[in-house]
């Protein structure tokens, strides 16, 4: 496994979410993901980035190109220092929202990615990791 190439982007505004989407698209294409996989991964990234902004009060995303033998992919780590998620199980339920959304961001993103993990501590913040492999 090669050392991952990491970069960080801020998520502090709606414009930042647009920039994250564009960068994820570019890197997913560079990793060799097909158009459907790119679309799934960019959609998931958009959902999680919006949560980072809306619920986490802003944060960052780290982008890692990952390679495991012939397998290439892209991993994104979203971090904020917001209020955290009290019940991850509940937050992962289709339709569950505390912000008047559709409640599909987390549960839907989990379906759209090959790797999905949430770490969160109430009062400390939230980290969501997603990855998609070719």
């Amino acid at each position, binding site marked *: 496994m090669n050392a991952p190439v990491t970069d960080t982007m801020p998520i502090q505004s709606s414009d930042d*979410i647009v920039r994250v989407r564009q960068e994820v698209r570019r890197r997913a294409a560079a990793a060799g993901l097909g158009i459907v996989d790119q679309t799934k991964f960019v*959609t998931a990234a958009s959902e999680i980035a919006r949560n980072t902004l809306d619920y986490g009060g802003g944060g960052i995303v780290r982008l890692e190109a990952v390679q495991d033998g012939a397998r290439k992919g892209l991993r994104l780590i979203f971090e904020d220092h917001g209020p955290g998620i009290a019940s991850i199980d509940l937050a992962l339920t289709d339709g569950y929202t505390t912000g008047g959304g559709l409640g599909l*961001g987390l549960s839907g993103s989990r379906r759209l990615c090959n790797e999905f993990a949430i770490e969160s501590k109430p009062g400390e913040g939230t980290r969501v990791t997603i990855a998609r492999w070719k």
Partner: protein
Amino acid sequence: MERIPILKMGRALLITIQVDMHDQMAIALEEDLTTRIAQTGAKGVLIDISSLEIVDSFIGRMLDNIAAVSRVLDAETVVVGMRPAVAITLVELGLTLQGVKTALNVERGFELISRRLAEIETVVVEIGAEDERSGD
């Protein structure tokens, strides 16, 4: 702020979303559209999303809202030109776009709305004919 243009096409309104929309644009579009439907008495709204590379739940909710408001104002919403990769992703995301009709392209979407208009007019003519019969 950049706004999305709304064109009048006969008795329908056509919106072509060409940019990666951010939140303020989406909110402005909902407001502008509501005003235009009320002003023009449009019976259909076509939303061309063929340029959109993704539809996330934020945009999905906007499309749902537009359809719901249009319905209250007696106009039907048809989303046209959704890319196949976007359609596949929406299903997996779990977004059903209830109350939103879809069509392959603008022409097909316009046909759907024209058909609805023809139905409305037929009913109006029939009611008119009945009025005449009962009016003697």
